[in-house]
């Protein structure tokens, strides 16, 4: 190796190499300054401490894992959107933190025979200053009732008419007495803004800057990043201590937990089980595991529309039941939820008290591979390929696609576990992770749903069985019904229980519905959630641990009662 070098052995000077030598002093100084500034600046920045974030007693900062889909109350389906809308819009009546019903836009709500009469609150104005009148209530009820529009249509299935005898009272008439007061769940929208739109336009409207009467006004939204609202100082009720609420999106459990720990956010409504222990150990945080009115489920595409691209085999009940028998609910509770959940069966969580139905041992469709294999053999899928996956008649593998929200790690893990247990009985599942918006629009593609199975979840909007029971109604296809389940018998039972005043008889009907839907296996419900929530004790106090969650629950009171500082 020939390289003419100074004879190193004799050169004494260490002469470490800096600077730019002879090609001119000026260049040297400029280059050194440039290097110096680049390396020093971040260091200097780090030295003078972190920036002063918003005065903590002002902004209640929530960090969640999925974004809202829309502000339009007539087309929204996601819990996140309903949560934000509950602060922008008021309902006639509302729940307190103790889940008791309290007056809201209506000072009183009296049911008599087939009618419910609301006495309205006075001197209430919309965020744009227009006064709130009875016409707004009439318009809202008529829009939903007549057109069966959106997820709240299930409360007005027997809707007949709505009248405003005078400026202060509104009377809603039904075909039959109502067991549940719809005023508790229907957000009242400003007539002067919505009446100009046709129903078709309303279905497409993004309602980008919503106007309501609620305690907070819409402030800003950046898709995939941030939603924020500010306090409405002209609100009719007691002004909340927080000057605003903001929700920022974290797609990674660690980054979300870390953001809470170092004070970037104040509360996490749905903590992932794997990080919950870490937060529980942190003394600055209050971490709670509350009973909930929510469950996560595996939905099966049973849509019968011609355009459906779902696997037709799933229309056969035996296949769905085989999948039900393959599912190992205890394993999902232990592994996917690290024990922070309860094995589930029917669509109503136990927190609904005596309305809750539980299958007996032999009725249970759970963790029974032999029964699953028996059903599949009976259905004619006897041939298996080298890896043990069953073959359909035309030689293709018996396989289904399953989609889950990539950022909801419990769902991804549930899908992975279901993949493993389905493979044991010869069914191949291929998992694809999508972000929350894409999953929602893929599932709710009513005319051409292009999926087989999904992993998602439901939070009950109200403290009444009708909400969850109403999801699989045929009338809710296009609304809440995410599996396009349609069973006339089920619909009939629903209308009966909705009008059954006698509690005991109603419970009997409700249990019958739960068993029917359970055995149909359009939903395979592995777990009832425990609401894992955690907030910075130093920043916020006076948050009641309401069953179903401090926030992300059907009561918004904790947002109103939260006190900044401890």
């Amino acid at each position, binding site marked *: 190796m*020939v*390289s*003419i*070098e*100074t*004879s*190193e*052995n*004799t*050169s*004494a*000077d260490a002469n470490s190499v800096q600077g730019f030598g*002879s*090609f001119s002093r000026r260049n040297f100084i400029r280059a050194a300054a440039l290097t110096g500034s680049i390396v020093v600046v971040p260091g200097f920045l780090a030295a003078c401490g972190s920036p002063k974030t918003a005065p903590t007693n002002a902004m209640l900062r929530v960090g969640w894992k999925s974004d809202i889909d829309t502000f339009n109350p007539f087309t929204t389906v996601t819990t996140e959107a309903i949560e934000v809308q509950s602060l922008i819009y008021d309902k006639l009546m509302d729940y307190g933190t103790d889940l008791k019903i309290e007056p809201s836009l209506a000072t009183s709500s009296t049911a008599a025979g087939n009618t419910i009469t609301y006495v309205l609150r006075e001197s209430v104005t919309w965020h744009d200053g227009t006064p709130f009148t009875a016409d707004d209530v009439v318009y809202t009820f008529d829009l939903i009732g007549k057109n069966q529009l959106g997820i709240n249509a299930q409360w007005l299935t027997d809707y007949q008419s709505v009248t405003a005898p005078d400026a202060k009272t509104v009377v809603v008439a039904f075909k039959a007495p109502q067991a549940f007061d719809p005023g508790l769940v229907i957000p009242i929208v400003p007539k002067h803004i919505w009446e100009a739109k046709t129903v078709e336009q309303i279905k497409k409207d993004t309602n980008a800057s919503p106007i309501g009467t609620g305690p907070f006004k819409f402030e800003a939204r950046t898709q995939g990043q941030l939603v924020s609202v500010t306090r409405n100082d002209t609100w009719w009720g007691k002004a909340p201590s927080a000057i605003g609420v903001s929700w920022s999106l974290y797609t990674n459990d660690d980054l979300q937990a870390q953001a809470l720990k170092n004070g970037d956010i104040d509360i996490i409504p749905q903590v992932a089980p794997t990080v919950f222990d870490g937060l529980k150990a942190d003394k600055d945080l209050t971490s709670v595991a509350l009973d909930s009115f929510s469950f996560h489920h595996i939905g099966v595409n049973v849509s019968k529309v011609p355009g459906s691209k779902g696997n037709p085999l799933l229309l056969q009940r035996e296949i769905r039941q085989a999948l039900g028998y393959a599912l190992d609910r205890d394993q999902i509770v232990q592994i996917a939820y690290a024990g922070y959940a309860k094995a589930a069966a029917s669509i109503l969580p136990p927190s609904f008290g005596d309305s809750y139905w539980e299958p007996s041992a032999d009725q249970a469709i759970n963790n029974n591979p032999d029964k699953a294999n028996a059903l599949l053999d009976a259905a004619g899928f006897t041939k298996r390929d080298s890896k043990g996956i069953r073959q359909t008649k035309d030689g293709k593998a018996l396989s289904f696609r399953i989609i889950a929200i990539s950022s909801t790690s419990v769902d991804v893990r549930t899908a992975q576990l279901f993949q493993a247990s389905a493979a044991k009985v010869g069914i191949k599942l291929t998992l694809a992770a999508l972000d929350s918006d894409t999953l929602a629009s893929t599932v709710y593609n009513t005319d051409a749903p292009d999926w087989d199975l999904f992993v998602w979840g439901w939070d009950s909007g109200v403290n009444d069985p009708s909400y969850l029971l109403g999801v699989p109604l045929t009338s809710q296809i296009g609304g809440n019904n995410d599996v396009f389940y349609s069973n006339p018998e089920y619909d009939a039972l629903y209308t009966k229980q909705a009008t059954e005043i006698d509690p005991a008889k109603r419970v009997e009907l409700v249990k019958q519905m739960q068993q029917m839907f359970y055995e149909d296996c359009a939903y395979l419900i592995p777990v009832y959630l425990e609401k894992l929530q955690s907030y910075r004790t130093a920043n916020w106090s006076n948050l009641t641990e309401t069953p179903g969650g401090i926030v992300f629950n059907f009561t918004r009171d904790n947002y109103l009662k939260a006190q900044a500082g401890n």
Partner: protein
Amino acid sequence: MSLLEISNLRVAYDSPAGTVMAVDGVDFSIEPGEFVGLAGESGCGKTTLAMSIPQLLPRMARITEGSIRFDGQLISDLNEEQMKPFRWKDISVIFQGALNALNPVQSIGSQIQEPIRVHDSSVNEVQAHERMCDLLEAVGIPAKRALDYPHQFSGGMRQRVMIAMALACQPKLVIADEPITALDVMTQAQIMDLLRSLCDKFDLSMILISHDLSVLAQTCDRVAVMYAGKIVETGRAEDVFGNDGAKSRADHPYTQRLLKAYPNINHERVFIDGIPGMPPDLSQPQHGCRFADRCDLAIARCASEEPRLSNFGNNHQVACHVATPPGANYS
């Protein structure tokens, strides 16, 4: 007292094939203002000898024995740092491939000017620039081309730039390593005249390394012929080559064969015979005269005993058992 005195110098190259004694016990001296030629086949160690003076040897070469005195001061044991004041101030070098020896991305003016201020901080920018321009004019290059880059000059011009650069600090000794080999004959003559005139004008002494004896014969005061790491003959140019080069009075058989290797314009055309055989492998120990097995006058003694340089009159020395001093009958 002579400007440069090299006594019993030994320089070894350690290569994967073992250590090669490129320069094996050489004594050499040069007087101020003297123009000395160093001749020999390529690989005979002439460049190594010359380059060991300013210690510009390759990484694996090192001086193992002997001493080099410059202006009376011992410089062979100096380290890199101590050597710096001598380089270019006292001893400068004109390299062979001028294009590659000049920095391609720096203008020739700044390359010439660079050593001036490094070695004499009292000179300010303007004075250095002036001297650079004088030097360019001295070597026949218009000063306005100082801003041009090496690739914008022809071979001959680049060699002139090298010469200008070598004289930048008025050195006492200039080593020219094959300065004209890469040039056409006409340019060669111009460059050699230029070197000779500058050498006289600035009264500096020069070592001219070349394998081309005709060049050395015309311009050098004294010549030394090297073979396989040793000086086999040294003396005044006319003593070694004969004043008209016609009658070969060279005494060492190797020098004779070298002279015969050149067609002589005055003689009739005759087929030139090269020297058979190959130079010895210097990584093996040598004994006896190294030219012995290629020399047709070799006798038994040549193979066993190494001939020492003996005086053939007014400092004309020859290292050969067979060669006889003038006056003795020349068999």
